[in-house]
């Protein structure tokens, strides 16, 4: 009997109050903490260090949203989710949003009752092979052994690609990226397929990167982005527009370093609206007017986040490519903030 009190107390303290009918935004504010579904560890995108501080490209988006909603980028709790548990964790309300390089697909958007609110990374599935394999196109991979992560869309894309080109392959399924890389390095597969960003990251950390090539074919579109529950439109707006605020900031040249200067000197009406100096954009979605400013000040603009976590110069060394701003030939384009 004495045990059940422990249980009761445990339940009482750890139970997040099930506020029936409350919106996610209210929940987050009441709790004073944003719960963000993250990866169990993916270099550059989301992984904790030895003392439990999470860093990464996806992690920074969560921090930006925490800064916008709660005014403090540190008030985020990261819940590691696996490929299998991630969507359920979101549906059941265990996490407020999921930023876990998840691909936006029709069925996930509709059948799983989720909403993909933005695309923070445009990716595509590619192949990495050893140079001495003598392969220059993925179509020459007939009969090859291919390492592939389970529980992802890449499995389906791979099956489709080989079928379309009427060639065969032998799949070697792996549980996560580290394992895929290990198998590939050991030569257990001829080609490793995953999102091109992941491939580039893997290649960058190889001791003999020059002996490996990423094949030119990108066999799928992989728009990765933050996901929220279907039906809570206000919360979706908060996440979407915080993300766009980061994009607009880059477009306008606002960084975490110069944000105060810009605010003091700007004559640009959109920048003023963005930073809360005029209009009531923040209030309209249930936040402070300074919400976006807080977000940018906390983590920097989109370009800064990219450069800091995965950009050229980091050990992951990804080019902006499709993720450059639309003004620089990329796809990242924010609707006007008005």
């Amino acid at each position: 009997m004495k045990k059940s009190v422990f249980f009761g107390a445990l339940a009482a303290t750890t139970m997040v109050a099930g506020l029936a009918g409350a919106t996610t935004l209210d929940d987050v504010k009441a709790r004073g903490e944003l719960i963000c579904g993250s990866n169990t560890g993916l270099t550059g995108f989301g992984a904790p260090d030895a003392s439990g501080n999470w860093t990464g490209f996806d992690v920074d988006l969560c921090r930006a949203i925490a800064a916008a909603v709660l005014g403090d980028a540190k008030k985020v709790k990261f819940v590691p989710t696996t490929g299998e548990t991630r969507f359920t964790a979101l549906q059941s309300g265990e996490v407020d949003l999921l930023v876990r390089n998840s691909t936006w697909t029709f069925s996930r958007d509709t059948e799983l009752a989720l909403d993909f609110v933005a695309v923070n990374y445009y990716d595509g599935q590619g192949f990495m092979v050893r140079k001495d394999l003598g392969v220059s196109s993925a179509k020459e991979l007939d009969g090859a052994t291919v390492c592939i992560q389970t529980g992802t869309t890449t499995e389906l894309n791979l099956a489709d690609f080989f079928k379309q080109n009427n060639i065969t392959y032998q799949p070697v399924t792996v549980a996560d990226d580290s394992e895929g890389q290990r198998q590939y390095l050991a030569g257990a597969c001829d080609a490793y397929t995953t999102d091109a960003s992941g491939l580039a990251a893997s290649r960058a950390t190889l001791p003999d990167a020059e002996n490996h090539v990423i094949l030119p074919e990108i066999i799928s579109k992989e728009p990765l982005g933050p996901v929220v529950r279907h039906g809570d439109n206000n919360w979706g707006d908060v996440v979407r527009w915080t993300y766009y605020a980061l994009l607009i900031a880059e477009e306008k040249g606002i960084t975490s370093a110069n944000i105060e200067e810009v605010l003091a000197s700007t004559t640009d009406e959109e920048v003023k609206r963005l930073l809360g100096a005029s209009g009531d954009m923040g209030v309209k979605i249930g936040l402070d007017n300074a919400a976006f400013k807080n977000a940018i000040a906390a983590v920097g603009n989109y370009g800064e986040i990219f450069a800091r976590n995965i950009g050229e110069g980091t050990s992951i060394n990804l080019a902006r490519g499709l993720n450059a701003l639309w003004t620089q030939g990329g796809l990242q384009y924010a609707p006007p903030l008005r």
Partner: protein
Amino acid sequence: MDQHFARTEMLPPMTPPITERGAVKWLRENLFSTPFNIALTLFGIAVIYLLVRASLPWWLNSVWNASSLSECRQIVEAAAGTGATGACWAMIREWWGAFIFGFYPPDQWWRPILAFGFLMAALAPVLFSGQTRNLTIVLVVVAVFLALTLWLAGTPGIAFGLAALVVIGMLALAQVQPGKLIWFTLIYPALCFWLLWGGSVWSPIVAMAGFGVLYVVFRQASPFIGLAPAAGAGVLAAVLWWLYLDKALVDVLHGVVPLALQSINSDQFGGFLLAIVIGITGISFSLPIGILLALGRQSDMLIVKTLSVGFIEFIRGVPLITLLFTASLLLQYFLPPGTNFDIILRVIILVTFFAAAYLAEVIRGGLAALPRGQYEAADALGLDYWRAQRLIILPQALKISIPSIVSTFIGLFKDTTLVAFVGLMDPLKGVTQIVRADINWKGIYWEPYIFVGTIFFLICFGMSRYSMYLEKKLKTDHR
């Protein structure tokens, strides 16, 4: 004339031939007695030789000081020539905290250590009730362990002093009234909860007070409405207490005396701390459930029996991993909409069910091993069912089952590694996965697994030896 020759003095004993003494004899008897044995010995030597040859250079080239895997490799190659391989234990230096405590804040590490030390102190009164000598030994061991580890973990002075006070108090009590120490065991769950998760000191106290409410209501009501209804009323009162009064009372009391520890989120639990928390809470919650299930399975009442058997067989028939996925994916389907709690708590619930089903079978074995005479004697004394169980049957049955309970616990403890598959940071796969995603240590493989495996081995081996010792000690029959 008869002449007899008889030796009058004994010859000194001769030394046995060389083949029958010393090392040679031992070798002959133990290693080379028959051709088959010779073959076995040679085979054994070959196995050892191959293992050592394959792994020795790797161990010898170990590197303890480096900041990344590539640096490790450079050091090894510089020391032992190109192409040489060596273990990179430098990773452990950087990450050992995460392997043991997960992301529990380092300045709070004294709390889990204290909880662990007190756990041993709380188990002692159960195992050695009333035996001053054994209790003293255990408490002294606990005191030494705590003094050493708490000092290493940099415990704040006040906590250190309080801990010392508690242990000294228990030691004193063990000398005077060892029987009373059981009270420490009774309050331990609340204490442990408070130490680990932190928060206001009042929440465990008020929660514990619920039992007081239960008892008082039961005592006051039983003369008027009878035992069984009074027990029901007591339980009802306690539940009402926990559901409605608990939170408000904690707030009020906390407002008056704000005594609190820094509150720690469940997501910061990881590594062996997580494994031990899940294992121990799982086994201790499951013990009462397991006893009830075992009694239910032995019961004459058809419905009770069917339900117990159904539960036990269902849980034992499916792999633990499906139960963990149930905790992660399905549990929230079964609870009222909007209910939402911690994945660790959900995992503990399912692990408790899992352990309860296994313990029920273990205890059933203990019940079955009791001679029928014990049941008959209990009946002859006119004891009712619960008294017979409590006074005669269960004490003996549980004692018989202790070794199996310990081995169930060892199994459960090893199985806690599976929580990695629902995204928790178990030491074996969860933490290792994070280490392997760290840009500095990307590509490391053997070292974390060997490190974690060794600790698992030490803990489990230690427990199994201890249970063998207990088994011998508790044996009271005259076989």
